[in-house]
């Protein structure tokens, strides 16, 4: 089986999708990333990565209902697919293999 093909941002967003479950849309995803990295995130970059993940079949999207608190605009919800979960698992295994037996990393 070929190794994982995910970049760091892709992997981070897939993990966030798994954590957020049904509540994953632009704002919540960006907040989660900002909280964990302590760096500001451009929402457009989040959407660019999400689009790429959807194209590669690692995530799917679904439009919600328009609400007044969003100026009458709908939320776009994202969910990780089975293929996405397998890819995250493969990435984890690769990282763990590389991590092992490195005294510098404790």
């Amino acid at each position: 089986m070929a190794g994982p093909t995910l970049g760091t941002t892709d992997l981070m967003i897939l993990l966030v999708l798994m954590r957020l479950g049904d509540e994953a849309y632009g704002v919540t995803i960006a907040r989660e990333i900002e909280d964990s990295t302590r760096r500001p995130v451009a929402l457009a970059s989040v959407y660019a990565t999400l689009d790429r993940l959807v194209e590669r079949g690692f995530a799917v999207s679904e439009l919600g209902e328009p609400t007044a608190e969003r100026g009458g605009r709908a939320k776009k919800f994202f969910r990780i697919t089975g293929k996405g979960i397998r890819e995250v698992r493969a990435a984890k295994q690769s990282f763990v293999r590389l991590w092992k037996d490195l005294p510098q990393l404790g």
Partner: protein
Amino acid sequence: MAKQPPFGGQLLNRLVPNENHDALLGDLYEEYQRDRSVLWYRVQILAAIVVGSLKYVRRHWVLGLRAIGIGVATFLAYFYVVGILFLNHTHIISPPGLVGAFVMAETFFLLGFAVSGWAVVRTHRACGIALALPFAGLMCALTLSETVSSLLMPRSLTLWESGTLVVKLLGIPASIVLGGYFATRRAGIA
């Protein structure tokens, strides 16, 4: 409920083709209602324009090459036609001093870039401003390479040359984008 800062949404819809704009603008509105500043909102819109355009160019790189070709051809045509007219009438337009000559020359060039930007976007109207970016990038790269080659000579840049470089590096992309803006459709991308 605070109103959304004006023009952001219209500008984004006008300049960049993307199916996510509605959800993105909704997210920005939601965050702006929470505790974000107008500056944050404007930076996010700018980021969306840049990210969306780059993404579009990566996907349609052949169109990007064509856009560069159209931009260069338009600039050369402008340079040739307007330049000859300009040279034939220098006795009428005689700028006062060195600064006047500099301002006139830079205006001539930047106007040419604006016309080229307009032509690039006008011939790729469905792509918004996206395809003006590779042309702007190439022109900036050429300007920088010219500077780098002059730096390889055994002398440093004079203050005058440094000033000219800054004007060009800021002015070229700004002129191309401004020219392109006038070629986009008012009601949004087709």
